[in-house]
């Protein structure tokens, strides 16, 4: 027989256990910084303040990853899920559960700002729907996939140029979110789960189940706009935030001295009719 008095005690025990579990988890390495380009900082259990990241530095739950301009990194999680972080971003891994023996995993991450690309590992597909990415205005439920997104005014910049977004909107430069499902598509080769996500904002859920589809959430308390097919220009701009592209071949043109500075003046002679 269970007495009512035992309920708070049970709850307390559960909370203590949760705290213990959380504490244990906090110390656990969930991944590493697989590549670091330019200004990437993170917090770790060993160094709880933001410090320059180095390749192969261990990342644990709750660590912040912050990138500067023209900077990017790729986090590889233990199940080999890849989480690329673009320029001027701030992200964090909130939860990660991985059972290597069952080849099953799930992850929850937060993107506070900036661009990201998430590419789940096959083990994540063993627990479909248990992984998610949160932004300030949206929650993305992952059913196994490659997704890209951006939080902040760059999301607005892309959305405003998308012909598929026809209506006017008022956007918040801090929290506006653009999410793009990249794949894998239904014609992907091999035993690969087709990409699919559910984007929820302000109580409205929009499923994306085809590569190239996107949704845009202009700000807090606003429903998602979409799905719409993102243009090459929009996707290109998003990808430029995630990775540097080769310089244009014709970019390095040294502008010569003014023509009149050397050749004409060299003769020190006035040949014009005003002389």
């Amino acid at each position, binding site marked *: 027989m269970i007495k009512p008095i035992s309920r708070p005690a049970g709850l307390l025990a*559960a909370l203590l256990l949760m705290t213990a579990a959380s504490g244990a988890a906090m110390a656990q390495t969930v991944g590493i910084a697989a590549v670091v380009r330019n200004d990437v900082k993170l917090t770790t259990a060993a160094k709880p303040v933001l410090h320059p990241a180095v390749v192969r530095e261990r990342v644990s739950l709750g660590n912040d990853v912050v990138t500067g301009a023209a900077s990017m990194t790729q986090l590889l999680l233990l199940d080999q899920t890849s989480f690329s972080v673009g320029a001027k971003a701030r992200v964090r891994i909130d939860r990660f559960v991985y059972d290597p023996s069952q080849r099953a995993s799930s992850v929850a991450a937060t993107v506070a700002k900036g661009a990201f690309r998430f590419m789940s590992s096959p083990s994540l597909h063993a627990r479909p729907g248990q992984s998610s990415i949160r932004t300030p205005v949206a929650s993305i439920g992952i059913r196994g996939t490659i997704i890209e997104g951006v939080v902040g005014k760059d999301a607005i910049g892309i959305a405003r140029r998308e012909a598929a977004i026809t209506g006017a909107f008022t956007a918040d430069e801090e929290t506006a979110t653009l999410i793009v499902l990249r794949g894998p598509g239904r014609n992907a080769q091999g035993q690969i789960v087709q990409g699919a996500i559910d984007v929820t904002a302000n109580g409205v859920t929009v499923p994306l189940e085809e590569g190239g589809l996107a949704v845009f959430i202009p700000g807090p308390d606003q429903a998602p706009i979409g799905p719409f097919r993102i243009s090459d220009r929009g996707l290109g701009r998003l990808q430029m935030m995630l990775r540097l592209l080769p310089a244009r071949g014709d970019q390095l043109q*040294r502008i010569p001295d003014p023509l009149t500075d050397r050749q004409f003046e060299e003769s020190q002679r006035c040949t014009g009719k005003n002389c």
Partner: protein
Amino acid sequence: MRDASNRAFGRVHRLASGCLAASLGWSVPALAQDSEVAALDQLVERSASVNSAIELAREQAAAGDLLGAAATYERVLIADENADEARLAYAAILCRLDDRQSARLELRALNGAGGSQAARDEVAKACGVAAPGRPRKSGLSGGIGVGLAYESDALGALQVFPTFFSPSDDGLGVIANASLNGRFGEGSGYAYMDAWGQAKTDLTGPQEDYQIGSLSLGYGTSWSNKDLKLGGVIRHGRISGVENFTEYGGEVELTSASSEGNRTTVRAEAVWQHDPFGFIGGMHYDLAAYYDVRDSARLTWFIGAGAEIKEADFTSDKYVAGRMMAGFDRLLDSRGTYANLSSTMRYVVFGDEEFVPLRRDLRIFTRAAIGTPLVKSGLNIEAAVSHSYRDYSKSSLLADYSSFGGSLSLIWKFGNRR
């Protein structure tokens, strides 16, 4: 009541059990965690160089791990955006993942250059389309620009004989320029041609039209990451229909590129400057070095320095000069809108001769431009502002010169300039 208590207990029990399981779940894999982290370390280690990363990605793809292969290529491309071989292979993997839109963007980013034929064949097989063509060694590139230019002191710009007072006249004119660069040949050697010309016709102001042209022809050879050019050069300039100068001679240029795509260039030139009036003809020697940096896909910049020696019959016509140059070019959006800024500072010391005022010139030229493509065929519209400044030493008793300029031009670029 009991049912409610039992349900509550059940919830708490499940919660506590979940937490316990989570706790244990972390402790058990912790034993295996080292091996998982070690596996990640190994992946990163094998991604340290482009070649080993490509090898790793190929192994992953062969094992059916297309997502792992894609992640490996992404690591490579984050570290080195110029790894064309990896970009081609990445595009092929994207096609196999049925992400053709991204594959198309990756192929577009190649800018028609780089990568092996094998990688291109892989793209053709996976994507069903050919990757952009490799740059041909032989080919022409160049540009043509035409526009309106204004100078607050157009007269002073061509007032090539410095005066003790400063006549000034602003002017609006039509300015046109063209460049044509060609490389011809297969293998490591090639013939090259660099032609360039500019003409200005005044609509208002001093009515001092000018034309200037330059032509270089020679032979070049490439090995490893270096390129050496050796050739002849001829230039000619006219003001108001009258020959102003003609110069001809030789040039040699050595360029060395780093693995990051940065380039160091050293160029030497020796030309005979012909004076149509027979006074100041003589040899002119120029040695300059430039360092060009691809700081990112969007930003390139350069710095440079040069030195000159001019010979002439009279000591006061001889001079030595030094100059420094710097500039940057910034890509502003994915359409190709750009902004650039460059500046040259040149200090000229003329020979001291009895009864001739001592003369030292400081000349500064700065130009800023912003341009954007009008259509996809290489047509840009560019707006530019510039400032020219000459500070003559007081002992020379010459009047300083300062002029602001502005131009609005249509510029058509063609060919692969990579």
